[in-house]
């Protein structure tokens, strides 16, 4: 069975270590926060100027001045801090963020990512995504393996305008966990009940299968 969005988030949460500062993008990445184990302390960064992002507020605690990068109302935890946009991106560019999780339209076998623009159809802007992918050593892309038309999103070469080049090293999809190596996507784990062949069929880019591929443990 292919993973649900929640299960993709759950698998990514297993990559988190105690003490991490983490930036989670919009969509599936946001769900990762729900699966951080209780014995692990992480600090969530939101690029609009917030460290120590807490849960969504109750109706009484809503404050228009306190939002996350997705423009949702949020809260701040007791160990948190506010700061301006330039400092926020100094944290990102300066390599102080331990893990970045974000979505994508396409990822290429050389680690390129396209996530911000569909020419002629959608031009919303890149927001902070280009800064995040250019800076972070530890980036995980969370996305579906194929698009709504059933076409692979793991390609030899991206067809859409890039967000960053040669920067993605790990991808978790509904079918698999893959790493980007010198020669293509290295299959590391299969979603429970999904065969290597199914993953191969859904991957347009070079898929490297070495030995027995274990099932994900969620």
């Amino acid at each position, binding site marked *: 069975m292919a993973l649900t969005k929640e299960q993709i988030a759950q698998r990514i949460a297993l990559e988190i270590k105690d003490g991490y500062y983490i930036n989670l993008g919009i969509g599936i990445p946001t769900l990762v926060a729900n699966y951080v184990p209780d014995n692990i302390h992480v600090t969530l960064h939101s690029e609009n100027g917030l460290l120590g992002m807490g849960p*969504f507020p109750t109706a009484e605690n809503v404050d228009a001045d306190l939002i996350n990068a997705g423009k949702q109302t949020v809260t701040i935890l007791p160990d948190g801090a506010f700061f301006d946009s330039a400092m926020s991106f100094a944290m990102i560019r300066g390599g102080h963020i331990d893990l970045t999780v974000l979505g994508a339209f396409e990822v290429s076998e050389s680690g390129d990512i396209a996530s911000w623009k569909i020419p002629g159809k959608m031009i919303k802007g890149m927001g902070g995504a280009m*800064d995040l992918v250019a800076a972070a050593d530890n980036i995980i892309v969370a996305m579906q393996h194929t698009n709504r038309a059933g076409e692979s999103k793991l390609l030899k070469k991206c067809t859409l305008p890039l967000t960053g080049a040669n920067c993605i090293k790990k991808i978790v999809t509904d079918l698999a966990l893959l790493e980007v190596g010198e020669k293509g996507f290295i299959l590391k784990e299969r979603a429970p009940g999904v065969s290597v062949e199914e993953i191969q069929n859904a991957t347009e880019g070079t898929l490297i299968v070495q030995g027995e591929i274990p099932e994900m443990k969620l």
Partner: protein
Amino acid sequence: MMSKQVNSADDLIHFIRNGMTIMAGGFGLCGIPENMINAVAASNVIDLTVISNNIGIDNFGLGKWLSKRQIKKILASYVGENKEFENMLLKGEVEMEFVPQGTLAERIRAGGAGIPAFYVATGVGTEVAEGKEERVFDGQRYILEKALRADVALVKAWKGDEAGNLVFKDTAQNFNAAMAMAGKLTIAEVEEMVPIGSLDPNHIHVPGIFVQYIFEGSNYEKRIERLTLANQV
């Protein structure tokens, strides 16, 4: 001390003239200078180049300037919340430079700090790098990004005093702090003017040197774009 305080946006609107480059603080609708935005929207000023992280929503915030066709060009990182703008853009009715958010913040900060340009890895190998000088430092590729300044910077703070010292609240700080530095003329509007000496000098976010005029704004709507509550999720 010379007071920088004026009564309202009406006293300052004459500073905004056709063809100027204007910075406007805020992230989405959080921390936007609502009073000055409304004053410009009520004026006949046109051909503005606007530098702002976002461009408001349809008919609110900077979206009002768009509806009135007061904007010639915009530099922003994300315009997804404004359908009218997306349509104008797809039809080529407005000039647009998309700037990655961190690069935008740093270009503004650099402008205010007297740094003409700087190298960043952000955008290397993408269309953002087109036409820009590229250089390698310690084996990594970087592109040269130029500083930004504005004829007038419009910023919004929580509290301020007659000297122009500003304190922000929560995430409403965002681009306001750097923009205050990058305006050749900076106009600050605040929710509350407080007497000189009542702000703790240890806790001032923007020292008054960067602010030329300040006033207490009125009728703040402070709209919320995505009200999200604990029990909804």
